[in-house]
């Protein structure tokens, strides 16, 4: 990448893209983790084993 005066904008664009995509991935996985935890706590309380899905 030649030292184009505007290459700063390219870098910024790719950083934003990385942030947004990483944000989406992390949010989805974190949501899954908390849901699984709540589900296990609830399933334990209602006395019913429950397959909360993989991972």
């Amino acid at each position, binding site marked *: 990448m030649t030292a184009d005066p505007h290459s700063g904008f*390219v870098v910024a664009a790719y950083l934003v893209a990385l942030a947004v995509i990483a944000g989406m991935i992390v949010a989805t996985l974190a949501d899954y983790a908390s849901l699984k935890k709540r589900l296990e706590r609830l399933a334990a309380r*209602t006395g*019913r084993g429950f397959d909360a899905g*993989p991972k």
Partner: protein
Amino acid sequence: MRTMPNYANPADFLRLVRAAAPVTATITAILFGIGLYLALLDSPPDYQQGETVRIMYLHVPSAWMAMFVYVVMSSAALGTLVWRHPLADATQKAAAPLGAAFTFLCLVTGSLWGKPEWGTWWVWDARLTSVFVLFLIYLGIIALWQVIEDPGKAARLVAVFTLVGAVNIPIIKFSVDWWNTLHQSASVFRMGGPTIAMSMLWPLIFMTFAFTFLFLTLHMLAIRNEILRRRIRRLSMLAASASEAGIPAIFAEPAQ
């Protein structure tokens, strides 16, 4: 004898996700690897815009995803209204935040791409403005999801709004274009121009597929989250009514 897996049934769908998610995730990674390599290293800078054309490889795919996700959401909305299937509800709700994220990415990359030429971060260019209105519609849909407690009712109401939105998007697109030409704004900015050199086409194709597979993977995982969220809500209500009736909640619960 295991019956044909009926992916409309949430339990079967969870098994599908457990199998398919890793596969699509690796495909996404591979596509991103190739796409980024082509986009950043292996393609020439544009003779006019120079390096900033590389932002196109993010901007155009995310614009395409913004529309694609809305189409997915609209078809899920039809699924909700016509077949009233909880999986369609989950599909619809899972798609909204992802669509909003892609639209936001499209707007930001568009602004970054135009900044060198416009001198400001935002210009009411016809296409960017239409994407901006689409972003407002996405935010409205997410807000509507958050306000209605009962998941079934929420899904049906949001489905109606999504379809109404779908009908209005072309109208908005047309009127924004006309509005833009009416007030012939100072800088008419051509987004990427009609003809793209072959060498620029390949990175664009790979990046677009990479984005699409990223969405498919995240969408599956998000649908699974919605299924679990609904199950938690139902179990909580069962727990409440069970203790009301004074009997411990040990009865089997159909895996609906």
